[in-house]
């Protein structure tokens, strides 16, 4: 994978995770803190969480090709780092949650995490579908060339 496609994958992943974080924040806020008003700077929390999540994604990168088991382990570490970052930053900001809210937040973060990878997988599936269509044309064309 070249640098350009690596960068575009990070940008796509960042955009998906930021969108999902905004949705999670909105749902959690409406459910547990409906009377709270947020200042303008609250708009920056989602992209900051998204950017930090991408930064922690470095644990999943490797020069060599990882086995499926290694990929799963590294993704679990990635998720744990994100969970730690979300709770840590909230704690530093003075947000202390009840056990129930904490559990729901932790599950919500995991859902966002899975959603990001699922959307990336869907994008790969779309690109695989396009590739498969072109592959048939490529094979036909090359066969014709050989016949000539």
């Amino acid at each position, binding site marked *: *994978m*070249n640098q350009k*496609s690596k960068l575009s*994958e990070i940008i796509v992943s960042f955009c998906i995770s930021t969108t999902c974080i905004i949705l999670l924040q909105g749902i959690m806020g409406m459910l547990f803190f409906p009377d709270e008003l947020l200042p303008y700077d609250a708009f920056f929390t989602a992209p900051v969480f998204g950017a930090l999540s991408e930064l922690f994604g470095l644990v*999943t990168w490797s020069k060599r*090709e*990882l086995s*499926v088991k290694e*990929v*799963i382990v590294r993704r679990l570490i990635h998720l744990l780092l994100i969970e730690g970052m979300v709770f840590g930053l909230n704690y530093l900001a003075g947000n202390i949650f009840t056990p129930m809210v904490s559990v729901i937040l932790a599950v919500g973060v995991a859902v966002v995490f899975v959603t990001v990878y699922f959307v*990336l*997988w869907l994008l*790969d*599936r*779309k*690109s*695989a579908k*396009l*590739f*498969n269509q*072109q*592959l048939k044309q*490529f*094979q036909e064309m*090359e*066969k014709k060339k050989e016949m000539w």
Partner: protein
Amino acid sequence: MRVSIRKIANKQDEQVLIECVEETAEIKEIEAYIRSKGTEISGIGTERIMKQFHLTDVYYFEALDEKVFAYTLEDVYEIKMRLYEVEEMYAKYHFVRCSKSVVMNLMLLDSISPALNGRFFAHMKNGEKLMISRQYAQQIKQIVMGGNLG
């Protein structure tokens, strides 16, 4: 250097024999050229007999324990080539590297599907499934799709 051609009866017995005092760079170049010209390869099959087979019948080449194997529908052959040589010599016959240890035949590729971590599975026409590494996926897409990258 003297060059002689001797006609024989059997196609299967065709060969190029280089007689030299020393394997110089020039000799190696001639050897590489001859190897790259033919679309028939010889290899040791599972019955430990040297056989000739068509390059177009090879689904993929795989490097295992310092040896390179060619996989056809009927048999697996051990060939006397390095994987990088296979990759270089047979690129024009639509063979492309798909992982560190595998060079596959694009003409016998049926489809691809997404796997984990930006990798893809290559479903060959014989039903076998190979892994396309992240680093080679882009190159394969480039060959097949040209400027139409998804």
